[in-house]
């Protein structure tokens, strides 16, 4: 997927000025309430969280062994496993499979990794008719936009916008004002026809089970099950770190994922092992599983290893005050919010995404709500350190920090210097008690008064008091 992480600052300002977006974003307060209800109100969440983390740690520590096992069991169940080192190879596997089957029409359920590797665009370029079948993703396909959230991709789209998009795409004569129910009904009808007509159904995976070769999918709409039950071929695109040892690991994790995402249990938890048998009315005869690395194996074992524990529940973004202010698209790549700010520099490159780890107050709410305890703030901190080590820094902040270091590492000199500064700022305030404008601090004073120092520093006043 094309990245706009480099212009994060501008993206964020645009998002703040986007009135439609700002009208939609407060809905994440409801996500927070759902999270609280699904985690706090039900018994056993703390225990579930502890064991879930342990399972994820174990899976990552044994990822190569588990993937090898998964390959064997999945193939024994009749699936075919493909390995993709990068996005290009992942796209090529899918294109080859589609070409070999003489496919024309492809339906695709929601999957973050397919966004990451730019699969839809590649298929369309190759001449396939591709339909996103998750209703939110379908809306975004019509609007030609990337997802803004890992669980609720179109949360930034208002009812009126969706009404317009559907009316145009479906040729329905809407005068606006249709309800969510009416829109879902219309969208589902259109998508059901596409499911029935498709040659290939593509899904992601929430978990890959090494012991049985199963792919586990957690969904609500029914589209992923349609995509794996109607077309003749099912392609799974999944990233390496989704593998777990056994079904009994998966079942603990699916509870945890679902609850952290704000729902006690998803409507569908589908455990798919092999392509299945074609019965009276067709369905898949082939199942292909494309295992995508795309930078993940390089993160294993290093400073950002723990971020691979992520189960993509979205809780960190739902609770993040930055995400709350600008939504997901401003982050500029596939994964928004705190987890996005941690994995994007690792999976793309730090130079272009250096703003993401900076755009945080390190308030820590993300770590608090993370179901697998990913230390997100300290990882953001680690990216900041790497940026200082590896990237050229703006001259102004380098000078400011150098000057600050000079004085701050010499307490007595610092005491003297700050008492001069305090005096100076006091004089600049003309006795009004506040400063409304300050040359080097316009970022502050554009929207906030600065209290003026009281004339002398605490240290000086304390010494004087004797």
């Amino acid at each position, binding site marked *: 997927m094309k990245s706009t992480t480099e212009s994060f600052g501008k993206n964020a300002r645009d998002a703040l000025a986007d009135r439609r977006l700002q009208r939609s974003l407060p809905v994440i307060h409801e996500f927070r309430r759902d999270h609280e209800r699904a985690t706090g109100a039900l018994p056993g969440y703390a225990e579930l969280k502890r064991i879930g983390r342990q399972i994820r740690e174990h899976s990552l520590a044994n990822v190569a062994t588990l993937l090898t096992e998964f390959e064997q069991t999945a193939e024994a169940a009749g699936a075919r496993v493909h390995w993709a080192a990068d996005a290009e190879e992942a796209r090529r596997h899918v294109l080859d499979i589609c070409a070999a089957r003489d496919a024309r029409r492809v339906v695709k359920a929601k999957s973050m990794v397919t966004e990451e590797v730019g699969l839809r665009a590649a298929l369309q370029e190759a001449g396939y008719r591709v339909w996103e079948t998750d209703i939110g993703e379908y809306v975004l396909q019509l609007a030609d936009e990337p997802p803004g959230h890992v669980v609720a991709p179109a949360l930034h789209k208002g009812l009126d916008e969706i009404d317009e998009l559907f009316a145009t795409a479906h040729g329905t004569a809407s005068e606006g004002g249709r309800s969510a129910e009416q829109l879902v009904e219309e969208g589902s009808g259109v998508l059901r026809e596409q499911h029935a007509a498709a040659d290939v159904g593509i899904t992601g995976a929430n978990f890959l089970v090494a012991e049985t070769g199963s792919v586990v999918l957690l969904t609500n709409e029914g589209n992923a099950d349609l995509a794996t039950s109607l077309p003749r071929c099912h392609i799974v695109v999944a990233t390496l770190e989704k593998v777990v040892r056994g079904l009994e690991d998966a079942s603990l994790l699916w509870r945890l994922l679902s609850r952290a995402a704000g729902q006690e249990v998803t409507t569908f938890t589908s455990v798919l092992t092999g392509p299945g048998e074609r019965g009276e009315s067709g369905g898949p005869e082939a199942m292909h599983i494309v295992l995508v690395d795309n930078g993940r194996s390089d993160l294993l074992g290093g400073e950002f290893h723990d971020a691979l524990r992520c189960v993509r529940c979205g809780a960190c973004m739902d609770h993040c005050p930055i995400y709350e202010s600008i939504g997901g698209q401003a982050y500029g790549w596939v994964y928004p919010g705190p987890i996005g700010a941690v994995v994007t520099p690792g999976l793309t490159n730090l130079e272009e995404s250096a703003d993401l780890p900076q755009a945080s107050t390190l308030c820590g709410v993300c770590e608090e709500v993370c179901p697998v305890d990913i230390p997100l703030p300290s990882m953001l901190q680690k990216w900041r350190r790497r940026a200082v080590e590896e990237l050229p820094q703006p001259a102004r902040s380098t000078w400011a920090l150098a000057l600050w270091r000079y004085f701050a590492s010499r*307490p007595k000199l610092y005491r003297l210097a700050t008492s001069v500064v305090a005096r100076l700022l006091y004089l600049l305030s003309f006795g009004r008690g506040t400063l409304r404008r300050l040359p080097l601090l316009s970022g502050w004073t554009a929207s906030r008064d600065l209290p003026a*120092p009281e004339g002398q520093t*605490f240290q000086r006043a304390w010494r004087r008091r004797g």
Partner: protein
Amino acid sequence: MSGQTDRVIPGVALFATCLVDLFRPSVGFAAARLLERAGFTVHVPPQACCGQPAFNSGDEERARDVARAFVDTFSRYEYVVTPSGSCASMIRFDMPRLFDGASGPAALRALEVAEKTWELTAFLVESGGAEIIDAENRATVTYHDGCSGLRKLSIREQPRELLRAVRGLTLVEYEGAAQCCGFGGTFCVKFPELSTEMCHKRCAQIAESAADELIGGEMGCLMNLSGAMARQGQPIGARHVAEVLAGMTDTPALGRGKGSV
């Protein structure tokens, strides 16, 4: 440092923090008074900063230089107390990590200092509690939790418990109390629009509460929130919790300029 002895100086070394030192000396005096009431001798050695600005910017080398000066100064005292949750957690958790893998006196001292550093209200609750509070205040106030204090040091009940001992004071909770105000150290000048957006959300929530004054334990948050409220013309001033607990509210509240109380 030359002339340093191994003997621990009894009492509390007050680390005022750079924001209090420069902008709000009254908080330092209030903290000192509270600590004295709790029975401690208070020392204010020459001091600068805990290193947070550099550390949070990823500049660990410069942060380490500043931290080295800090531990040189403060390792001699029995306790280190600071009226800030974010500085306390910097000293407790991050400062020793700056010397990870290093040996030598600074690394050892960083660990020692980390173990004896306390955030002010947590220290007061541990060493006397509500009994040392002798103050009266007729205001209706609301409390803003600083993020580091709240999430890294679990400081939530301590300031509230102490505030409830202030005679005449009404404490009401506001909806955004536990949510970030958008200060974030250098964040507020690196991303001023984002910072302002977060800050304005909190200001609106504070305005919805019945409070006529905002109290907090973190100067950065208080300067941020009161500076925005002042700019918006909201008549709500802000004070550090130490001033209220010590009964030292002669200085005008933050955001209320001169003359208003």
